[in-house]
């Protein structure tokens, strides 16, 4: 498989006081740092840039390898020479969302007002806030119009938000396994995760930096999350009722492989993720709602083309939510292709169904790039 080789994360900082970023809540945030990576080469016309937006626990490291690391970026199967997002043709940008903990400004960053980590003094951020920060990055890179913005799950929400906030700045969008608005079920799972963290005695109202972190709570939150990313069938195939030992332990140590898997996932997650970021980012997803009148204004002429993808066994972001997106676009006479991909992987499918996604995305991007950009007046 072709690879991008060693990649370094870069960063920009903007919104220095008194010109802070004004957030949807009305609060101000500044300075703001955004961590990002780029793959491929920006062409002279600056017309081949694609922004890839990450899911809940993702980061700027979407493809290639970091020095000394064995695992590539989270969408390496899709980004690289000859891949869906072909870096021989396109200039791919990936950034960490604000509120995150992988280089962009978030609750673990130093609050310039106190010289200490923000903790809960960090303002509530929303998906639009994340997208406005990305827009600053795109401006910084000298790009006027994106060829596409693409992402799965929360990344799909950002792609939709780009279409709502900056419809004239994108030529296409690829929202995958996502929704126009978080449903009560999606909010409920997020709330369980938040409560697990906040119930951890080490959480201390978010003021735990430099001390023990609320690792138990965060691990439990992640365990719940992982259940929602799989499907009944994928869990059966992956674990069935297999046990580590032949005999039951008749105790509460983990007998079943699925228990061991979830514990392992929880324990590794706490090493790479900040509990407060978990709270802030899940809240941002829960606030997300661009349904109905909040979507692209009905009288707005939008030339951007959409590719909407969902997965058959995804019960966290079920296909009806993707059909709703496609229908909102159809009502506005906006060009849209929608495909529900057969898969047993559940929500995880957007990271795993590489062949089907590659085929659809590759051809879709070819179509979009062949069409001349309508002249901006």
């Amino acid at each position, binding site marked *: 498989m072709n690879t991008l080789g060693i990649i370094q994360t870069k960063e920009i900082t903007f919104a220095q006081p008194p010109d802070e970023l004004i957030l949807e809540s009305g609060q101000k945030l500044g300075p703001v740092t955004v961590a990002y990576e780029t793959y491929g080469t920006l062409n002279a016309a600056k017309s081949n840039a694609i922004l890839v937006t990450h899911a809940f626990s993702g980061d700027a490291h979407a493809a290639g390898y970091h020095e000394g690391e064995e695992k590539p970026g989270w969408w390496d199967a899709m980004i690289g020479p000859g891949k869906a997002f072909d870096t021989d043709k396109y200039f791919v940008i990936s950034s960490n969302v604000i509120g995150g903990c992988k280089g962009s400004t978030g609750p673990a960053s130093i609050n310039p007002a106190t010289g200490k980590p923000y903790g809960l003094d960090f303002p509530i951020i929303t998906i639009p806030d994340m997208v406005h920060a990305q827009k600053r990055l795109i401006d910084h890179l000298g790009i006027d119009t994106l060829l596409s913005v693409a992402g799965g799950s929360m990344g799909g929400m950002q792609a939709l938000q780009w279409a709502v906030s900056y419809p004239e700045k994108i030529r296409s969008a690829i929202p995958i396994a996502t929704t126009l608005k978080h449903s009560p079920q999606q909010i409920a799972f997020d709330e369980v995760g938040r409560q697990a963290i906040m119930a951890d005695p080490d959480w201390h109202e978010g003021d735990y930096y430099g001390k023990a972190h609320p690792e138990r709570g965060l691990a439990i939150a992640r365990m719940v999350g992982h259940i929602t990313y799989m499907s009944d069938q994928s869990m059966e195939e992956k674990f069935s009722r297999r046990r580590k030992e032949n005999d039951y332990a008749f105790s509460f140590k983990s007998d079943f492989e699925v228990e061991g898997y979830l514990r392992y996932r929880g324990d590794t997650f706490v090493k790479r993720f900040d509990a407060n970021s978990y709270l802030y980012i899940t809240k941002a997803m829960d606030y997300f709602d661009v349904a109905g009148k909040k979507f692209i204004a009905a009288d707005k002429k939008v030339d951007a083309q959409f590719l909407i993808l969902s997965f058959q066994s995804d019960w966290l972001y079920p296909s009806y939510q993707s059909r709703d997106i*496609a229908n*909102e676009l159809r009502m506005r006479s906006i060009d849209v*292709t929608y*495909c*529900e991909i057969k898969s047993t992987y559940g929500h995880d499918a957007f990271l795993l169904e590489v062949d089907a996604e590659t085929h*659809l995305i590759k*051809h879709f991007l070819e*179509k979009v790039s062949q069409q001349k950009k309508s002249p901006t007046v």
Partner: protein
Amino acid sequence: MAEIRYDHQVISGIIETGSKVLDLGCGGGDLLKYLVDTKNVQAQGIELDEEAIHRCVAKGLSVYHSDIDSGLKGYPDKTFDYVILNQSLQQVKNIDYVTDESLRVGKKVIVGFPNFAFIASRSTLFFQGRVPITASLPYEWHNTPNLRFLSIDDFEYYCEQKKSQVIDRRYIGVPLLAEAFPNLFAESAIFLITATPE
């Protein structure tokens, strides 16, 4: 280049250049691609089969993954100049609903269907006592996707009942005779209908 199906050529002959077209049950997109190439249409397809959707996308077409019965929701009235139901109406569960919806979202509707009263079908049934298999009805009774079997006269009568106006009729079958006696000599028919009399 692959040979162009005759019914596709007929449909292309009906459609005006630059029209907005929706193909219900567009399959791999052969017809839509042909219409894009010959008539520069703005094309949109609706298709249920995922693999066929992949072929449409590879042709640069926009397609919506859905069955025909529920695929028309969401389109405003008269979104399309033409809605095409080519060789798919006989596979629809809720004919009335799909016909009404097609007439709602399309200014004109093109319906192409196999004629069950074609002479070859009649003779198979009459002389052999077997369910007919013809070029336009190529399936065995146990593997046919067709839910309905209709003749050209049946469809004429249906349009009358629906009070939809038939603007044009094209017949594919025995040369000359198909025009004179379509219900007997046309293997399939392509109707152009509309909801509002012009």
